[in-house]
Protein backbone atom coordinates (compact mmCIF):
# COMPACT_ATOMS: atom_id res chain seq x y z
CA UNK A 1 0.00 0.00 0.00
CA UNK A 2 2.86 2.38 0.87
CA UNK A 3 4.19 2.27 -2.68
CA UNK A 4 1.01 3.93 -3.93
CA UNK A 5 1.72 7.04 -1.85
CA UNK A 6 4.16 7.96 -4.62
CA UNK A 7 1.41 7.57 -7.16
CA UNK A 8 -0.94 9.78 -5.14
CA UNK A 9 1.79 12.39 -4.73
CA UNK A 10 2.50 12.30 -8.43
CA UNK A 11 -1.20 12.68 -9.22
CA UNK A 12 -1.42 15.71 -6.92
CA UNK A 13 1.57 17.34 -8.60
CA UNK A 14 0.05 16.76 -12.02
CA UNK A 15 -3.24 18.27 -10.93
CA UNK A 16 -1.52 21.22 -9.30
CA UNK A 17 0.58 21.82 -12.42
CA UNK A 18 -2.40 21.71 -14.80
CA UNK A 19 -4.66 23.96 -12.74
CA UNK A 20 -1.80 26.19 -11.53
CA UNK A 21 -0.62 26.99 -15.05
CA UNK A 22 -4.11 28.06 -16.07
CA UNK A 23 -4.54 30.29 -13.01
CA UNK A 24 -1.07 31.77 -13.44
CA UNK A 25 -1.73 32.54 -17.11
CA UNK A 26 -5.01 34.20 -16.18
CA UNK A 27 -3.23 36.39 -13.63
CA UNK A 28 -0.25 37.59 -15.60
CA UNK A 29 -1.43 37.68 -19.21
CA UNK A 30 -1.79 40.91 -21.19
CA UNK A 31 -5.33 42.33 -21.12
CA UNK A 32 -6.27 44.03 -24.39
CA UNK A 33 -7.71 47.47 -23.56
CA UNK A 34 -9.42 47.68 -26.97
CA UNK A 35 -11.23 44.36 -26.65
CA UNK A 36 -13.89 43.98 -29.30
CA UNK A 37 -15.98 40.79 -29.71
CA UNK A 38 -16.13 41.25 -33.49
CA UNK A 39 -12.34 40.94 -33.69
CA UNK A 40 -12.31 37.45 -32.25
CA UNK A 41 -15.21 36.19 -34.35
CA UNK A 42 -14.46 33.19 -36.60
CA UNK A 43 -14.60 34.04 -40.30
CA UNK A 44 -14.91 32.26 -43.61
CA UNK A 45 -12.26 33.70 -46.00
CA UNK A 46 -12.91 37.25 -44.89
CA UNK A 47 -16.67 36.96 -45.29
CA UNK A 48 -19.16 37.12 -42.45
CA UNK A 49 -19.84 33.62 -41.15
CA UNK A 50 -22.98 32.16 -42.67
CA UNK A 51 -24.76 29.48 -40.70
CA UNK A 52 -23.32 26.88 -38.40
CA UNK A 53 -20.24 24.72 -38.82
CA UNK A 54 -22.39 21.72 -37.83
CA UNK A 55 -23.81 20.93 -41.24
CA UNK A 56 -24.41 17.65 -43.03
CA UNK A 57 -21.53 16.46 -45.15
CA UNK A 58 -21.96 14.05 -48.01
CA UNK A 59 -21.43 10.46 -46.86
CA UNK A 60 -18.93 10.11 -49.74
CA UNK A 61 -16.32 12.04 -47.73
CA UNK A 62 -16.43 9.39 -45.01
CA UNK A 63 -16.13 6.59 -47.53
CA UNK A 64 -13.14 8.21 -49.19
CA UNK A 65 -11.56 8.77 -45.77
CA UNK A 66 -12.12 5.11 -44.86
CA UNK A 67 -10.57 3.89 -48.10
CA UNK A 68 -7.66 6.27 -47.52
CA UNK A 69 -7.10 4.69 -44.09
CA UNK A 70 -7.06 1.28 -45.76
CA UNK A 71 -4.09 2.25 -47.94
CA UNK A 72 -2.44 4.34 -45.27
CA UNK A 73 -2.25 1.38 -42.92
CA UNK A 74 -1.00 -0.77 -45.75
CA UNK A 75 1.88 1.62 -46.43
CA UNK A 76 2.70 1.94 -42.74
CA UNK A 77 3.22 -1.82 -42.61
CA UNK A 78 5.00 -2.04 -45.97
CA UNK A 79 7.97 0.21 -45.09
CA UNK A 80 9.32 -1.76 -42.12
CA UNK A 81 8.57 -4.98 -43.98
CA UNK A 82 10.59 -4.06 -47.05
CA UNK A 83 13.57 -2.92 -44.95
CA UNK A 84 13.84 -6.20 -43.08
CA UNK A 85 12.63 -8.60 -45.75
CA UNK A 86 16.10 -9.98 -46.50
CA UNK A 87 16.43 -11.16 -42.88
CA UNK A 88 12.88 -12.44 -42.43
CA UNK A 89 12.81 -14.79 -45.39
CA UNK A 90 10.01 -16.46 -47.27
CA UNK A 91 7.46 -16.69 -44.44
CA UNK A 92 7.33 -12.91 -44.05
CA UNK A 93 6.89 -12.57 -47.81
CA UNK A 94 3.91 -14.95 -47.81
CA UNK A 95 2.41 -13.28 -44.75
CA UNK A 96 2.59 -9.89 -46.43
CA UNK A 97 1.00 -11.31 -49.57
CA UNK A 98 -1.92 -12.57 -47.47
CA UNK A 99 -2.20 -9.18 -45.76
CA UNK A 100 -2.14 -7.32 -49.07
CA UNK A 101 -4.72 -9.61 -50.64
CA UNK A 102 -7.07 -9.04 -47.70
CA UNK A 103 -6.66 -5.28 -48.11
CA UNK A 104 -7.16 -5.66 -51.84
CA UNK A 105 -10.48 -7.39 -51.14
CA UNK A 106 -11.49 -4.34 -49.11
CA UNK A 107 -10.72 -2.10 -52.05
CA UNK A 108 -12.54 -4.45 -54.43
CA UNK A 109 -15.59 -4.28 -52.18
CA UNK A 110 -15.64 -0.47 -52.32
CA UNK A 111 -15.10 -0.56 -56.08
CA UNK A 112 -17.86 -3.09 -56.82
CA UNK A 113 -20.37 -1.32 -54.59
CA UNK A 114 -19.70 1.90 -56.51
CA UNK A 115 -18.32 3.83 -53.57
CA UNK A 116 -15.44 5.23 -55.62
CA UNK A 117 -17.77 6.94 -58.09
CA UNK A 118 -18.15 10.55 -57.04
CA UNK A 119 -21.31 11.51 -58.94
CA UNK A 120 -24.00 9.20 -57.72
CA UNK A 121 -27.31 9.50 -56.02
Amino acid at each position, binding site marked *: *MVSYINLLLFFCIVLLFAVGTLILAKLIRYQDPNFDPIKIQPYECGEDPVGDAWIRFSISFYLIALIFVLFDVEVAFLFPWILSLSKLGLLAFIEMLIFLS*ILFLGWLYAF*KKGDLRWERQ
Partner: protein
Amino acid sequence: MFKPLTLEIALTVGMFGIFLLDLFLDRHKKRVLGIFTLLLLIVILGISISKSVYGTAFSGTFVSDSFAVTLKQLFLIATGLAVLGSISHTEKLLIGREGEYYLLLLFSLLGMMITVSARELLLLFVGFELMSIPLYVLSGFDKGNPRSVEGALKIFLFGTVSSALLLLGIGIFFAATGTTAWHTTRALDELNDPLGTLALIILLAGFGFKIAAFPFQFWVPDTYEGAPTPFVAFLSVAPKVAGFGILFRFFFEALEPLASTWTLYAIWLAALTMIVGNLLALPQRNIKRLLAYSGIAHIGYMLLGLASGSKFGLEMSVFYFVAYLFSNMGAFLVAEAVHRATGSDDLDSYTRLYRRAPFLSLAMLVFLLSLGGIPFVIGFWAKLYIFLAAAEAGYIFIVLLGALLTVVALFYYLNVARKMYIDEGSGENSFISLPFDLSISIGICTLAVVLLGLYPKGIVWIAIKAISAFGQSNPIIH
Protein backbone atom coordinates in the same frame (compact mmCIF):
# COMPACT_ATOMS: atom_id res chain seq x y z
CA MET B 1 2.75 -24.41 -35.62
CA PHE B 2 -0.56 -23.38 -37.17
CA LYS B 3 -2.42 -26.54 -36.25
CA PRO B 4 -4.26 -25.08 -33.21
CA LEU B 5 -5.46 -22.30 -35.52
CA THR B 6 -7.02 -24.69 -38.05
CA LEU B 7 -10.62 -23.72 -37.26
CA GLU B 8 -9.95 -19.99 -37.45
CA ILE B 9 -7.96 -20.29 -40.68
CA ALA B 10 -10.64 -22.46 -42.28
CA LEU B 11 -13.31 -19.97 -41.26
CA THR B 12 -11.32 -17.02 -42.64
CA VAL B 13 -10.66 -18.72 -45.97
CA GLY B 14 -14.32 -19.71 -46.28
CA MET B 15 -15.38 -16.19 -45.38
CA PHE B 16 -13.33 -14.68 -48.17
CA GLY B 17 -14.85 -17.19 -50.57
CA ILE B 18 -18.33 -16.03 -49.58
CA PHE B 19 -17.16 -12.42 -49.77
CA LEU B 20 -16.01 -12.84 -53.38
CA LEU B 21 -19.16 -14.74 -54.25
CA ASP B 22 -21.22 -11.88 -52.82
CA LEU B 23 -19.37 -9.35 -54.98
CA PHE B 24 -19.76 -11.17 -58.27
CA LEU B 25 -23.20 -12.70 -57.77
CA ASP B 26 -26.31 -11.33 -59.41
CA ARG B 27 -28.60 -9.41 -57.09
CA HIS B 28 -31.39 -11.97 -57.32
CA LYS B 29 -29.27 -15.06 -56.82
CA LYS B 30 -27.91 -14.06 -53.43
CA ARG B 31 -30.08 -16.52 -51.54
CA VAL B 32 -27.43 -19.18 -52.19
CA LEU B 33 -25.09 -17.22 -49.89
CA GLY B 34 -27.05 -18.39 -46.84
CA ILE B 35 -26.78 -21.99 -47.94
CA PHE B 36 -23.04 -21.63 -48.58
CA THR B 37 -22.57 -20.04 -45.15
CA LEU B 38 -24.41 -22.94 -43.55
CA LEU B 39 -22.29 -25.48 -45.43
CA LEU B 40 -19.12 -23.68 -44.35
CA LEU B 41 -20.21 -23.83 -40.71
CA ILE B 42 -21.02 -27.53 -40.97
CA VAL B 43 -17.62 -28.24 -42.53
CA ILE B 44 -15.83 -26.35 -39.74
CA LEU B 45 -17.92 -28.16 -37.12
CA GLY B 46 -16.75 -31.38 -38.74
CA ILE B 47 -13.10 -30.26 -38.57
CA SER B 48 -13.48 -29.35 -34.90
CA ILE B 49 -14.23 -32.97 -34.02
CA SER B 50 -10.76 -33.95 -35.20
CA LYS B 51 -8.15 -34.39 -32.48
CA SER B 52 -5.43 -32.51 -34.34
CA VAL B 53 -6.82 -29.05 -33.51
CA TYR B 54 -5.61 -29.20 -29.89
CA GLY B 55 -2.40 -27.47 -28.84
CA THR B 56 -0.91 -24.06 -28.24
CA ALA B 57 0.47 -21.44 -30.62
CA PHE B 58 2.34 -18.13 -30.40
CA SER B 59 4.42 -19.21 -27.39
CA GLY B 60 1.42 -20.23 -25.35
CA THR B 61 -0.72 -17.13 -25.82
CA PHE B 62 -3.20 -18.92 -28.07
CA VAL B 63 -4.47 -22.15 -26.59
CA SER B 64 -6.83 -24.64 -28.17
CA ASP B 65 -7.81 -26.96 -25.32
CA SER B 66 -10.97 -28.98 -24.93
CA PHE B 67 -12.73 -26.06 -23.19
CA ALA B 68 -12.03 -23.71 -26.10
CA VAL B 69 -12.95 -26.31 -28.71
CA THR B 70 -16.23 -27.18 -26.97
CA LEU B 71 -17.20 -23.53 -26.78
CA LYS B 72 -16.25 -23.05 -30.43
CA GLN B 73 -18.55 -25.93 -31.34
CA LEU B 74 -21.34 -24.21 -29.41
CA PHE B 75 -20.70 -20.96 -31.31
CA LEU B 76 -20.74 -22.83 -34.60
CA ILE B 77 -24.06 -24.48 -33.74
CA ALA B 78 -25.56 -21.17 -32.61
CA THR B 79 -24.39 -19.37 -35.75
CA GLY B 80 -25.63 -22.24 -37.90
CA LEU B 81 -29.10 -22.09 -36.35
CA ALA B 82 -29.16 -18.30 -36.74
CA VAL B 83 -28.12 -18.53 -40.40
CA LEU B 84 -30.70 -21.23 -41.06
CA GLY B 85 -33.38 -19.13 -39.41
CA SER B 86 -32.34 -16.04 -41.38
CA ILE B 87 -32.56 -17.35 -44.94
CA SER B 88 -36.14 -16.40 -45.66
CA HIS B 89 -35.89 -13.27 -43.48
CA THR B 90 -32.98 -11.86 -45.47
CA GLU B 91 -34.59 -12.92 -48.73
CA LYS B 92 -37.67 -10.87 -47.93
CA LEU B 93 -36.43 -7.89 -45.98
CA LEU B 94 -32.74 -7.44 -46.75
CA ILE B 95 -32.69 -7.81 -50.52
CA GLY B 96 -29.22 -7.14 -51.91
CA ARG B 97 -27.70 -7.02 -48.43
CA GLU B 98 -27.66 -10.75 -47.70
CA GLY B 99 -23.91 -10.91 -48.21
CA GLU B 100 -23.18 -8.30 -45.57
CA TYR B 101 -25.58 -9.92 -43.12
CA TYR B 102 -23.98 -13.37 -43.29
CA LEU B 103 -20.44 -12.04 -43.42
CA LEU B 104 -20.95 -9.90 -40.33
CA LEU B 105 -22.30 -12.94 -38.49
CA LEU B 106 -19.20 -14.87 -39.55
CA PHE B 107 -16.82 -12.07 -38.52
CA SER B 108 -18.44 -12.02 -35.11
CA LEU B 109 -18.06 -15.80 -34.92
CA LEU B 110 -14.36 -15.49 -35.79
CA GLY B 111 -13.92 -12.95 -32.99
CA MET B 112 -15.55 -15.32 -30.50
CA MET B 113 -13.37 -18.21 -31.59
CA ILE B 114 -10.22 -16.13 -31.11
CA THR B 115 -11.23 -14.61 -27.83
CA VAL B 116 -12.05 -17.87 -26.02
CA SER B 117 -8.65 -19.23 -27.03
CA ALA B 118 -6.65 -16.24 -25.84
CA ARG B 119 -4.28 -16.50 -22.92
CA GLU B 120 -3.05 -12.98 -23.42
CA LEU B 121 -5.08 -9.90 -22.66
CA LEU B 122 -4.35 -7.96 -25.83
CA LEU B 123 -5.18 -10.92 -28.08
CA LEU B 124 -8.29 -11.38 -25.98
CA PHE B 125 -9.19 -7.73 -26.51
CA VAL B 126 -8.69 -7.91 -30.28
CA GLY B 127 -10.92 -10.98 -30.46
CA PHE B 128 -13.43 -9.29 -28.20
CA GLU B 129 -13.66 -6.27 -30.48
CA LEU B 130 -13.87 -8.42 -33.60
CA MET B 131 -16.81 -10.14 -31.91
CA SER B 132 -18.52 -6.91 -30.80
CA ILE B 133 -18.26 -4.53 -33.74
CA PRO B 134 -20.28 -6.68 -36.19
CA LEU B 135 -22.95 -6.97 -33.49
CA TYR B 136 -23.34 -3.19 -33.37
CA VAL B 137 -23.77 -3.07 -37.14
CA LEU B 138 -26.22 -5.98 -37.25
CA SER B 139 -28.36 -4.48 -34.46
CA GLY B 140 -29.09 -1.54 -36.72
CA PHE B 141 -29.52 -3.61 -39.86
CA ASP B 142 -33.23 -2.84 -40.11
CA LYS B 143 -32.39 0.71 -41.23
CA GLY B 144 -35.93 1.88 -41.82
CA ASN B 145 -37.07 1.07 -38.29
CA PRO B 146 -36.28 3.86 -35.78
CA ARG B 147 -36.34 1.33 -32.91
CA SER B 148 -33.63 -0.68 -34.61
CA VAL B 149 -31.43 2.40 -34.95
CA GLU B 150 -32.11 3.32 -31.31
CA GLY B 151 -31.19 -0.17 -30.16
CA ALA B 152 -28.05 -0.13 -32.29
CA LEU B 153 -26.95 3.18 -30.80
CA LYS B 154 -27.51 1.81 -27.29
CA ILE B 155 -25.52 -1.37 -27.81
CA PHE B 156 -22.81 0.68 -29.54
CA LEU B 157 -22.45 3.19 -26.70
CA PHE B 158 -22.54 0.50 -24.01
CA GLY B 159 -20.17 -1.66 -25.99
CA THR B 160 -17.57 1.05 -26.55
CA VAL B 161 -17.66 2.06 -22.88
CA SER B 162 -17.15 -1.57 -21.91
CA SER B 163 -14.19 -1.79 -24.31
CA ALA B 164 -12.67 1.31 -22.78
CA LEU B 165 -13.12 -0.22 -19.31
CA LEU B 166 -11.49 -3.43 -20.48
CA LEU B 167 -8.49 -1.52 -21.81
CA LEU B 168 -8.18 0.37 -18.55
CA GLY B 169 -8.36 -2.91 -16.66
CA ILE B 170 -5.73 -4.45 -18.92
CA GLY B 171 -3.49 -1.44 -18.28
CA ILE B 172 -3.84 -1.78 -14.52
CA PHE B 173 -3.31 -5.54 -14.74
CA PHE B 174 -0.10 -4.84 -16.62
CA ALA B 175 0.96 -2.28 -14.04
CA ALA B 176 0.39 -4.78 -11.25
CA THR B 177 2.01 -7.84 -12.80
CA GLY B 178 4.30 -6.56 -15.55
CA THR B 179 2.78 -8.92 -18.10
CA THR B 180 -0.36 -9.18 -20.18
CA ALA B 181 0.01 -12.91 -20.76
CA TRP B 182 -0.70 -15.62 -18.23
CA HIS B 183 0.38 -19.23 -18.11
CA THR B 184 -0.68 -21.59 -15.42
CA THR B 185 2.92 -22.63 -14.82
CA ARG B 186 3.49 -19.42 -12.89
CA ALA B 187 0.88 -18.01 -10.52
CA LEU B 188 0.64 -14.24 -10.66
CA ASP B 189 1.26 -13.60 -6.97
CA GLU B 190 1.79 -9.88 -7.58
CA LEU B 191 -1.98 -9.62 -7.93
CA ASN B 192 -2.34 -9.88 -4.16
CA ASP B 193 -2.35 -6.16 -3.65
CA PRO B 194 -4.78 -3.25 -4.07
CA LEU B 195 -3.81 -2.66 -7.69
CA GLY B 196 -4.64 -6.27 -8.57
CA THR B 197 -8.05 -5.97 -6.93
CA LEU B 198 -8.69 -2.75 -8.84
CA ALA B 199 -7.81 -4.49 -12.11
CA LEU B 200 -10.15 -7.33 -11.15
CA ILE B 201 -13.08 -4.99 -10.48
CA ILE B 202 -12.63 -2.98 -13.68
CA LEU B 203 -12.22 -6.09 -15.84
CA LEU B 204 -15.28 -7.68 -14.25
CA ALA B 205 -17.26 -4.54 -15.10
CA GLY B 206 -15.97 -4.63 -18.68
CA PHE B 207 -17.00 -8.25 -19.14
CA GLY B 208 -20.24 -7.60 -17.26
CA PHE B 209 -21.38 -5.21 -19.98
CA LYS B 210 -20.94 -7.87 -22.61
CA ILE B 211 -22.75 -10.64 -20.77
CA ALA B 212 -25.37 -8.10 -19.59
CA ALA B 213 -25.09 -8.79 -15.87
CA PHE B 214 -27.13 -6.65 -13.50
CA PRO B 215 -25.91 -3.06 -13.39
CA PHE B 216 -24.99 -3.18 -17.08
CA GLN B 217 -28.14 -4.68 -18.61
CA PHE B 218 -29.95 -1.53 -19.81
CA TRP B 219 -29.18 -1.93 -23.50
CA VAL B 220 -30.55 -5.47 -23.72
CA PRO B 221 -34.35 -5.05 -24.05
CA ASP B 222 -34.21 -2.09 -26.44
CA THR B 223 -31.61 -3.68 -28.67
CA TYR B 224 -33.46 -6.99 -28.78
CA GLU B 225 -36.73 -5.27 -29.58
CA GLY B 226 -35.36 -3.36 -32.55
CA ALA B 227 -32.91 -5.75 -34.15
CA PRO B 228 -33.88 -8.40 -36.75
CA THR B 229 -35.21 -11.37 -34.76
CA PRO B 230 -33.07 -14.21 -36.21
CA PHE B 231 -30.04 -12.08 -35.38
CA VAL B 232 -31.38 -11.51 -31.85
CA ALA B 233 -31.51 -15.29 -31.45
CA PHE B 234 -27.77 -15.24 -32.18
CA LEU B 235 -27.04 -12.12 -30.11
CA SER B 236 -28.82 -13.49 -27.05
CA VAL B 237 -26.76 -16.67 -26.98
CA ALA B 238 -23.38 -16.73 -28.72
CA PRO B 239 -21.75 -13.49 -27.43
CA LYS B 240 -23.00 -14.29 -23.93
CA VAL B 241 -21.41 -17.73 -24.01
CA ALA B 242 -18.22 -16.16 -25.40
CA GLY B 243 -18.25 -13.60 -22.58
CA PHE B 244 -18.56 -16.41 -20.04
CA GLY B 245 -15.81 -18.32 -21.80
CA ILE B 246 -13.41 -15.39 -21.36
CA LEU B 247 -14.53 -14.84 -17.78
CA PHE B 248 -13.90 -18.47 -16.89
CA ARG B 249 -10.53 -18.66 -18.55
CA PHE B 250 -9.28 -15.34 -17.24
CA PHE B 251 -10.61 -15.65 -13.71
CA PHE B 252 -9.75 -19.30 -13.11
CA GLU B 253 -6.34 -19.19 -14.77
CA ALA B 254 -4.95 -15.69 -14.33
CA LEU B 255 -6.77 -14.37 -11.28
CA GLU B 256 -6.49 -17.59 -9.29
CA PRO B 257 -4.67 -15.84 -6.40
CA LEU B 258 -7.70 -13.57 -5.97
CA ALA B 259 -10.28 -16.36 -6.06
CA SER B 260 -11.72 -15.52 -2.63
CA THR B 261 -12.36 -11.93 -3.78
CA TRP B 262 -14.00 -12.58 -7.11
CA THR B 263 -16.24 -15.41 -5.94
CA LEU B 264 -17.70 -12.87 -3.50
CA TYR B 265 -18.31 -10.32 -6.28
CA ALA B 266 -19.68 -12.99 -8.60
CA ILE B 267 -22.18 -14.22 -6.04
CA TRP B 268 -23.55 -10.70 -5.55
CA LEU B 269 -23.68 -10.11 -9.29
CA ALA B 270 -25.45 -13.43 -9.77
CA ALA B 271 -28.06 -12.74 -7.08
CA LEU B 272 -28.81 -9.20 -8.26
CA THR B 273 -28.94 -10.23 -11.92
CA MET B 274 -31.37 -13.05 -11.15
CA ILE B 275 -33.64 -10.75 -9.12
CA VAL B 276 -33.64 -7.88 -11.61
CA GLY B 277 -34.07 -10.05 -14.70
CA ASN B 278 -36.93 -12.08 -13.29
CA LEU B 279 -38.83 -9.19 -11.71
CA LEU B 280 -38.54 -6.89 -14.72
CA ALA B 281 -39.75 -9.66 -17.03
CA LEU B 282 -43.07 -9.82 -15.18
CA PRO B 283 -44.78 -6.70 -16.60
CA GLN B 284 -43.55 -7.14 -20.20
CA ARG B 285 -46.15 -7.20 -22.98
CA ASN B 286 -43.74 -7.73 -25.88
CA ILE B 287 -42.35 -11.21 -26.44
CA LYS B 288 -38.87 -9.99 -27.41
CA ARG B 289 -38.58 -7.77 -24.34
CA LEU B 290 -39.86 -10.60 -22.17
CA LEU B 291 -37.26 -12.97 -23.55
CA ALA B 292 -34.61 -10.25 -23.15
CA TYR B 293 -35.31 -9.95 -19.43
CA SER B 294 -35.57 -13.72 -19.03
CA GLY B 295 -32.16 -13.89 -20.76
CA ILE B 296 -30.75 -11.51 -18.12
CA ALA B 297 -32.14 -13.79 -15.42
CA HIS B 298 -30.43 -16.78 -17.05
CA ILE B 299 -27.13 -14.85 -17.04
CA GLY B 300 -27.59 -14.65 -13.29
CA TYR B 301 -27.99 -18.43 -13.02
CA MET B 302 -24.90 -18.96 -15.17
CA LEU B 303 -22.92 -16.60 -12.95
CA LEU B 304 -23.58 -19.06 -10.11
CA GLY B 305 -21.23 -21.44 -11.92
CA LEU B 306 -18.49 -18.81 -11.82
CA ALA B 307 -19.29 -17.95 -8.21
CA SER B 308 -18.99 -21.55 -7.08
CA GLY B 309 -15.31 -21.29 -8.01
CA SER B 310 -14.86 -25.01 -8.59
CA LYS B 311 -14.39 -27.28 -11.56
CA PHE B 312 -17.80 -28.77 -10.82
CA GLY B 313 -19.35 -25.33 -11.21
CA LEU B 314 -17.58 -24.86 -14.53
CA GLU B 315 -18.85 -28.18 -15.87
CA MET B 316 -22.39 -27.36 -14.88
CA SER B 317 -22.09 -23.93 -16.52
CA VAL B 318 -21.06 -25.57 -19.79
CA PHE B 319 -24.16 -27.76 -19.47
CA TYR B 320 -26.23 -24.63 -18.86
CA PHE B 321 -24.80 -23.04 -22.03
CA VAL B 322 -26.07 -25.96 -24.10
CA ALA B 323 -29.52 -25.83 -22.51
CA TYR B 324 -29.74 -22.03 -22.86
CA LEU B 325 -28.53 -22.13 -26.46
CA PHE B 326 -31.27 -24.42 -27.75
CA SER B 327 -34.15 -23.12 -25.61
CA ASN B 328 -33.48 -19.43 -26.08
CA MET B 329 -32.67 -19.58 -29.80
CA GLY B 330 -35.76 -21.71 -30.33
CA ALA B 331 -37.97 -19.22 -28.49
CA PHE B 332 -36.65 -16.29 -30.53
CA LEU B 333 -37.09 -18.21 -33.78
CA VAL B 334 -40.72 -18.90 -32.86
CA ALA B 335 -41.09 -15.17 -32.14
CA GLU B 336 -39.75 -14.54 -35.66
CA ALA B 337 -42.23 -17.00 -37.17
CA VAL B 338 -45.17 -15.43 -35.33
CA HIS B 339 -43.99 -11.96 -36.28
CA ARG B 340 -43.83 -13.04 -39.90
CA ALA B 341 -47.43 -14.24 -39.75
CA THR B 342 -49.07 -11.55 -37.62
CA GLY B 343 -46.73 -8.57 -38.05
CA SER B 344 -46.49 -7.98 -34.32
CA ASP B 345 -44.31 -8.99 -31.38
CA ASP B 346 -47.09 -8.32 -28.91
CA LEU B 347 -48.05 -11.09 -26.52
CA ASP B 348 -51.67 -10.73 -27.65
CA SER B 349 -50.74 -12.02 -31.09
CA TYR B 350 -50.08 -15.39 -29.42
CA THR B 351 -53.72 -15.76 -28.46
CA ARG B 352 -55.08 -19.10 -29.61
CA LEU B 353 -51.91 -19.87 -31.47
CA TYR B 354 -52.44 -23.62 -31.15
CA ARG B 355 -55.44 -23.43 -33.48
CA ARG B 356 -53.49 -21.53 -36.08
CA ALA B 357 -50.16 -23.37 -35.83
CA PRO B 358 -50.16 -26.49 -33.66
CA PHE B 359 -46.53 -27.38 -34.33
CA LEU B 360 -45.32 -23.86 -33.62
CA SER B 361 -47.17 -23.50 -30.34
CA LEU B 362 -46.07 -26.94 -29.17
CA ALA B 363 -42.45 -25.96 -29.92
CA MET B 364 -42.89 -22.67 -28.06
CA LEU B 365 -44.37 -24.52 -25.09
CA VAL B 366 -41.35 -26.82 -24.98
CA PHE B 367 -38.94 -23.86 -25.09
CA LEU B 368 -40.85 -22.00 -22.40
CA LEU B 369 -40.89 -25.06 -20.14
CA SER B 370 -37.18 -25.50 -20.71
CA LEU B 371 -36.43 -21.85 -19.94
CA GLY B 372 -38.64 -22.08 -16.87
CA GLY B 373 -36.96 -25.27 -15.67
CA ILE B 374 -39.83 -27.77 -15.67
CA PRO B 375 -38.76 -31.43 -15.33
CA PHE B 376 -37.76 -33.57 -18.24
CA VAL B 377 -36.75 -30.92 -20.67
CA ILE B 378 -33.12 -29.86 -20.73
CA GLY B 379 -33.61 -26.57 -18.87
CA PHE B 380 -34.64 -28.47 -15.74
CA TRP B 381 -31.37 -30.40 -15.56
CA ALA B 382 -29.39 -27.23 -16.27
CA LYS B 383 -30.97 -25.41 -13.33
CA LEU B 384 -30.71 -28.45 -11.07
CA TYR B 385 -27.03 -28.95 -11.78
CA ILE B 386 -26.09 -25.30 -11.43
CA PHE B 387 -27.93 -25.12 -8.08
CA LEU B 388 -26.16 -28.31 -7.03
CA ALA B 389 -22.79 -26.73 -7.84
CA ALA B 390 -23.65 -23.57 -5.92
CA ALA B 391 -24.93 -25.59 -2.94
CA GLU B 392 -21.74 -27.62 -2.89
CA ALA B 393 -19.76 -24.38 -2.72
CA GLY B 394 -21.84 -23.43 0.33
CA TYR B 395 -24.21 -20.84 -1.11
CA ILE B 396 -27.40 -22.40 0.25
CA PHE B 397 -29.14 -19.05 0.63
CA ILE B 398 -28.50 -18.08 -2.99
CA VAL B 399 -29.79 -21.47 -4.13
CA LEU B 400 -33.00 -20.88 -2.20
CA LEU B 401 -33.29 -17.43 -3.76
CA GLY B 402 -32.73 -18.90 -7.21
CA ALA B 403 -35.34 -21.59 -6.66
CA LEU B 404 -37.82 -18.98 -5.46
CA LEU B 405 -37.15 -16.81 -8.51
CA THR B 406 -37.67 -19.84 -10.75
CA VAL B 407 -41.24 -19.93 -9.49
CA VAL B 408 -41.59 -16.23 -10.30
CA ALA B 409 -40.22 -16.94 -13.75
CA LEU B 410 -42.79 -19.67 -14.33
CA PHE B 411 -45.50 -17.02 -14.03
CA TYR B 412 -44.38 -15.05 -17.07
CA TYR B 413 -43.34 -18.08 -19.09
CA LEU B 414 -46.63 -19.86 -18.52
CA ASN B 415 -48.52 -16.63 -19.16
CA VAL B 416 -47.44 -16.96 -22.80
CA ALA B 417 -48.48 -20.63 -22.76
CA ARG B 418 -51.86 -19.67 -21.30
CA LYS B 419 -52.39 -17.18 -24.11
CA MET B 420 -51.47 -19.80 -26.68
CA TYR B 421 -53.66 -22.62 -25.37
CA ILE B 422 -56.40 -21.37 -23.04
CA ASP B 423 -57.34 -17.75 -23.71
CA GLU B 424 -60.35 -17.14 -25.93
CA GLY B 425 -59.15 -14.66 -28.49
CA SER B 426 -60.90 -12.68 -31.16
CA GLY B 427 -61.57 -13.84 -34.71
CA GLU B 428 -58.39 -14.71 -36.58
CA ASN B 429 -58.29 -18.42 -37.21
CA SER B 430 -56.35 -18.66 -40.45
CA PHE B 431 -53.65 -21.30 -40.54
CA ILE B 432 -50.06 -20.09 -40.29
CA SER B 433 -47.73 -21.65 -42.82
CA LEU B 434 -44.09 -21.68 -41.80
CA PRO B 435 -41.19 -20.95 -44.15
CA PHE B 436 -39.10 -24.05 -44.77
CA ASP B 437 -35.89 -22.74 -43.16
CA LEU B 438 -37.63 -21.61 -39.98
CA SER B 439 -39.44 -24.92 -39.54
CA ILE B 440 -36.15 -26.82 -39.84
CA SER B 441 -34.31 -24.62 -37.35
CA ILE B 442 -37.19 -24.62 -34.85
CA GLY B 443 -37.49 -28.38 -35.33
CA ILE B 444 -33.79 -28.89 -34.53
CA CYS B 445 -34.10 -26.78 -31.37
CA THR B 446 -37.22 -28.64 -30.23
CA LEU B 447 -35.67 -32.04 -30.81
CA ALA B 448 -32.52 -30.99 -28.98
CA VAL B 449 -34.43 -29.64 -25.99
CA VAL B 450 -36.60 -32.75 -25.67
CA LEU B 451 -34.04 -35.45 -26.47
CA LEU B 452 -31.25 -33.92 -24.41
CA GLY B 453 -33.78 -33.51 -21.60
CA LEU B 454 -34.47 -37.24 -21.70
CA TYR B 455 -30.79 -38.09 -21.97
CA PRO B 456 -28.78 -35.36 -20.21
CA LYS B 457 -25.90 -37.73 -19.55
CA GLY B 458 -24.39 -37.13 -22.98
CA ILE B 459 -24.10 -33.40 -22.42
CA VAL B 460 -22.79 -33.91 -18.88
CA TRP B 461 -20.11 -36.13 -20.36
CA ILE B 462 -19.20 -33.47 -22.94
CA ALA B 463 -19.09 -30.81 -20.22
CA ILE B 464 -16.81 -32.93 -18.01
CA LYS B 465 -14.53 -33.60 -20.96
CA ALA B 466 -14.45 -29.89 -21.79
CA ILE B 467 -13.30 -28.93 -18.31
CA SER B 468 -10.99 -31.92 -17.73
CA ALA B 469 -7.89 -30.27 -19.20
CA PHE B 470 -8.91 -26.77 -18.13
CA GLY B 471 -6.13 -24.68 -16.65
CA GLN B 472 -3.24 -26.85 -17.78
CA SER B 473 -0.53 -24.96 -19.57
CA ASN B 474 -0.29 -27.47 -22.37
CA PRO B 475 -3.53 -29.23 -23.25
CA ILE B 476 -3.23 -33.00 -23.49
CA ILE B 477 -4.10 -34.46 -26.83
CA HIS B 478 -6.34 -37.40 -26.14
